[in-house]
């Protein structure tokens, strides 16, 4: 690693400030506050995990980070600059540095295009180099994700799920991005293959200096791959910190409940005696609860939690939480 990049490592590559994203419901009668006031930095070279149940706003954040949708309020800075302030042309070339990959490779690949043609497509749209140069880059990307040469001539239906996801990764790599948002990228893969793809992400990060925002509902996956993790609930972050801290010394009652709910493949002698089973389901983001949004399911809720929104505070170095009582020691069941 060169001195310059060593210095840069850990600097924010993305800064998110008071991000809000709102949607109209399909009948246009109500507003969904899909993301409602989120703050964080993604540091260069890290894997930043975002965990939360479905509907909590993870995908919406991911899409906003790569400007597939525009914030309703707040700001997203890439390397300190606001991409929305760029000219159209500058914006088009800038956004190549920030890619996103989704769960379903079938949705990302055209069934009538060969694998090579699919991987070439972004290069062609961006008019990078000559035709032979583009083809060289596409083949190189396929090789990087561990697909043999002859796969270039095949069609998506001839590949397994894991292989197709590799093609999608290759496609994102061709434009040499700095950051990739990975949204549930291993959720659709079988267990025995998931490990392979996670290993590939780790290898690519090491070799290419990539930064990842890794979005998943799977606690074990996020613990495995990320250095820091944010826990989302109903459009907001409730906790953010180093993965080890969050997984082993969680501060927020929701994080504690999530960890407790995770079924673990451990023999009975090693499993927790009692688990916290949260009551009810996540309320609607159209009309979230007042005060702390988790209060309708929180086993520790107090009158104050209805009245006041908990502050987002750094309770321990680098470890943030939004709960009025997170500094009280009796939250954890252990």
């Amino acid at each position, binding site marked *: *690693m060169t001195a310059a990049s060593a210095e840069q490592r850990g600097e924010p590559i993305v800064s998110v400030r008071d991000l809000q994203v709102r949607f109209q419901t399909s009948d246009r009668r109500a507003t969904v506050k899909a993301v409602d006031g989120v703050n964080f930095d993604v540091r260069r070279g890290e894997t930043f995990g975002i965990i939360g*149940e*479905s509907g909590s706003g993870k995908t919406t954040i991911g899409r906003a980070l790569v400007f597939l949708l525009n914030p309703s309020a707040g700001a997203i800075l890439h390397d300190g600059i606001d991409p929305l302030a760029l000219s159209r042309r500058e914006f088009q070339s800038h956004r190549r540095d920030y890619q996103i990959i989704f769960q379903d490779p079938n949705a990302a690949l055209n069934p009538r295009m060969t694998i090579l043609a699919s991987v070439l497509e972004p290069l062609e749209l961006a008019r990078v180099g000559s035709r032979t140069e583009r083809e060289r880059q596409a083949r190189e990307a396929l090789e990087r994700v561990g697909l043999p040469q002859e796969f270039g001539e095949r069609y998506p239906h001839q590949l*397994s799920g*894991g292989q197709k996801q590799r093609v999608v990764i290759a496609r994102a790599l061709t434009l040499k991005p700095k950051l990739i948002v990975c949204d549930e990228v291993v959720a659709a893969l*079988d*267990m*025995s*293959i*998931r*490990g*392979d793809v*996670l*290993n590939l992400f*780790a290898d690519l*990060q*090491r070799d290419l200096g990539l930064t990842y925002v890794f979005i998943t*509902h799977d*606690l*074990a*996956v996020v*613990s*495995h*791959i990320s250095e820091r993790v944010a826990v989302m609930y109903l459009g907001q972050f409730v906790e953010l910190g180093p*993965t*080890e801290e969050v*997984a*082993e010394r969680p501060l927020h009652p929701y994080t504690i*409940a*999530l*960890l*407790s*709910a*995770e*079924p*673990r*493949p*451990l*023999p*009975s*002698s*090693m*499993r927790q*005696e009692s*688990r916290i*089973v*949260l009551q009810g*389901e*996540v309320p609607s983001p159209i009309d979230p609860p007042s005060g702390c949004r988790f209060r309708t399911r929180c086993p520790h809720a107090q009158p104050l939690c209805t009245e006041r929104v908990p502050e987002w505070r750094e309770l321990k170095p680098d470890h943030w939480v939004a709960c009025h009582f997170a500094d009280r020691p009796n939250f954890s069941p252990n």
Partner: protein
Amino acid sequence: MGEGQLAQRKSEVAREGARPLLSVRGLGIRFKTTQGIWQATRRIDFDIAPGERVGIVGESGCGKTITGLSILRLLPGNFAGLDGKILFDGVDLASCSARQMRAIRGKRIAMIFQEPMSALDPVFTVGHQIAETLRVHSNVGEEEARARTLEMLRRVGIASPERRIDDYPHQLSGGMRQRVMIAASLICGPQLLIADEPTTALDVTVQAQILELLRDISETSKTALMLITHDLGVVAETCTRMITMYAGEVIEDATVDEALVRPLHPYTSGLLRSLPHLSPRHGRLPSIPGRVPSITEMPAGCRFRARCAHAAKGCEAEQKLQDAGGGRKVRCWRFAELNLPGALHPPDTSASARVARQ
């Protein structure tokens, strides 16, 4: 003695003692496709004791769903033949008439699926559907059916069931629909509930609620549970015994604790090792190369051979599901000499792995 150990002891006692509730012997299913007739599952042997909770695990395509469906004889249209016996309480379901099967299905054996919408009819209220199941199988009046439906909805954890009973399925959340489906499946008090990936589409906090419900119902009503899932954590939390399937066959059968700590089959061990753990490690995850063969390309001999790190001369022979002692079974002739790691294999020391990443 912990709760889990106690449950395990009970299940061992149950297995050795009473006649099994379900006894599957040599079960195989064939399908017709445009390329001919293919064997999807074969030589499936297992027992489920009354009230026992058994997990059926394996990756997708291993034959778990087909096995569940064949017990109820709910096979797809291109079904081309069934071999073997399915003894349920002494009756061979494989040779029952369609009428006899209708009397068993829903009453003595019930099944729930990953997507409750596929089993619930969108044009009827949930109350109507549950009550209907009851009225088909027993001679109860409308009023009593409604009363019992309300009670069952309450039992499966639906708050204010009086308000929900006249809702249509689309008005309910995913977790709520799964509860309704469980209520419908349990209303006739079946002896066996087959649950095919019942929590796969649900969030983890709702999954925990549903698994607790299934466990609780099986304990209080002595309903046996056959829980089909790809998630080994779900089996560990819910079941006492684990049957692993690979490429249409049963390859291991053991108590959950034995299978997790000391798996005997290389496939079971590989699955356990490939799981990321909650305690952050950041090391490389072991994986199993290759993939589950499709029904048209089943290899001869041990079906796991092409992916097995322990394949040796001798593995090209057909493998029998053999007795491994202590009530365990395994389909691998090398099991005694292989000392395979389970879920508790020593994790990569995270510090050194992390340095390697930088």
